[in-house]
């Protein structure tokens, strides 16, 4: 996996990966072959996540999941902006595809209505699996630029100066867009998962 961080907060913009993706989509054979080779990481990631989340997917289900994840990646590939290594970007697809599949098979708690059900013992070792899914889903619904800035800030640990430089805007503009984006994200989260009123606390 290409190096993506040279020190705390100092992230490299993955021009080479971005070029690879653009050239692939432009139909350049060499790039397409290189891209296909890089996507061999998907199976490893799927197997890895399945293991961490309890290992309940059998070989056939894993095979289907690899295929579906690759399809998703191919569909979303034009959105890759080079903010992280291609594999890091792919990882998010894999991670949440595995979770979604396990949920579909009812082998992990549902997002809303089954949160009281305890996860499988091995899945319980990875609490973030469930805790952060709602953030991921809300970020997916946020407008692309706001989501990108928030990810650059919190997932890639960039400073506002770095974010501004990455986007080609002044630092204060990056701050303003981030602040507004976070407010929108909060709105999305509250709309979907409203805070319980005092009377509802402790209830179902």
């Amino acid at each position: 996996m290409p190096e993506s961080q040279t020190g705390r907060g100092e992230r490299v913009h993955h021009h080479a990966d971005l070029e690879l993706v653009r050239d692939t989509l432009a139909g350049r054979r060499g790039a397409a072959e290189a891209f296909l080779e890089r996507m061999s990481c998907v199976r490893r990631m799927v197997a890895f996540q399945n293991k961490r989340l309890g290992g309940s997917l059998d070989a056939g289900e894993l095979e289907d999941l690899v295929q579906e994840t690759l399809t998703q990646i191919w569909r979303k590939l034009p959105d890759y902006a080079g903010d992280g290594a291609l594999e890091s970007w792919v990882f998010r697809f894999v991670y949440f595809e595995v979770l979604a599949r396990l949920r579909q098979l009812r082998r992990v708690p549902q997002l809303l209505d089954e949160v009281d059900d305890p996860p499988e013992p091995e899945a319980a070792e990875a609490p973030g699996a469930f805790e952060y899914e709602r953030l991921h889903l809300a970020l997916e619904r946020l407008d692309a630029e706001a989501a990108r800035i928030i990810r650059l800030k919190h997932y890639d640990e960039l400073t506002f100066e770095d974010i501004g430089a990455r986007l080609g805007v002044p630092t204060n503009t990056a701050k303003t867009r981030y602040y507004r984006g976070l407010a929108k994200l909060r709105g999305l989260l509250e709309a979907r998962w409203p805070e319980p009123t005092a009377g509802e606390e402790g209830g179902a």
Partner: protein
Amino acid sequence: MKHEARHDEILAELLTGASPRESFEASELASCAACRELAEAHLGLAGELDAAGGFERAQLAALADDDAAIELGPAEAEFRRRVLRDLGLERQARGGPGALLGLLVAAAALVALLVVPKMIGGEDDDGGPRMGGEKELLAPVEVVPGETYGTFRWRYPLPERGWFLVQVHGEDGKITTSPRLRAHEWTPDPEEEASWPDRIRWTLEVYDGSRGSRVFDALSTSAERSSD
């Protein structure tokens, strides 16, 4: 303290500055209930996002340490077929008995390319236009004189209930995406375009509404505006 309109700007500055919680607590806004509620909500979500980022980095690090043997399977083979087919590279990838025929076809295509140099569209491995016929990117391509890229134009059969999207990229990533288009041209907002770099790559994406999916036959090219 009663909430005032000026608080909003100060709060935004505090919460995007260094040590936001400490800065907020030390500020006059700490005694404003409305500001406190907003600050707590903001800082709470920022903390969750930090944790999510940390979780993702830890997962990636664990994955990098995972050395379990992995054997690729039918899913990758199918994916490879699909990618090459979508990119129009499938036929060229085949070998065996058909290879000689493929070579002859390629030679004929080369001759046609030399004889009919103006049939353009897309981009080849040298960065130049690709033979396109009914699928061509017409403008802007290569160097565009003037301070604007002008109207984006293309030729491409529009699927039934389909639409086009134009994606514009600069060196640092995506700049903009057009709205859904049924026309074969799109003129970006001149004010927005003024902030674009002098070199862009643009991609025409085609969507088939009846299938609800993207037609993976996107064309892409680069353009450079020059006021010289």
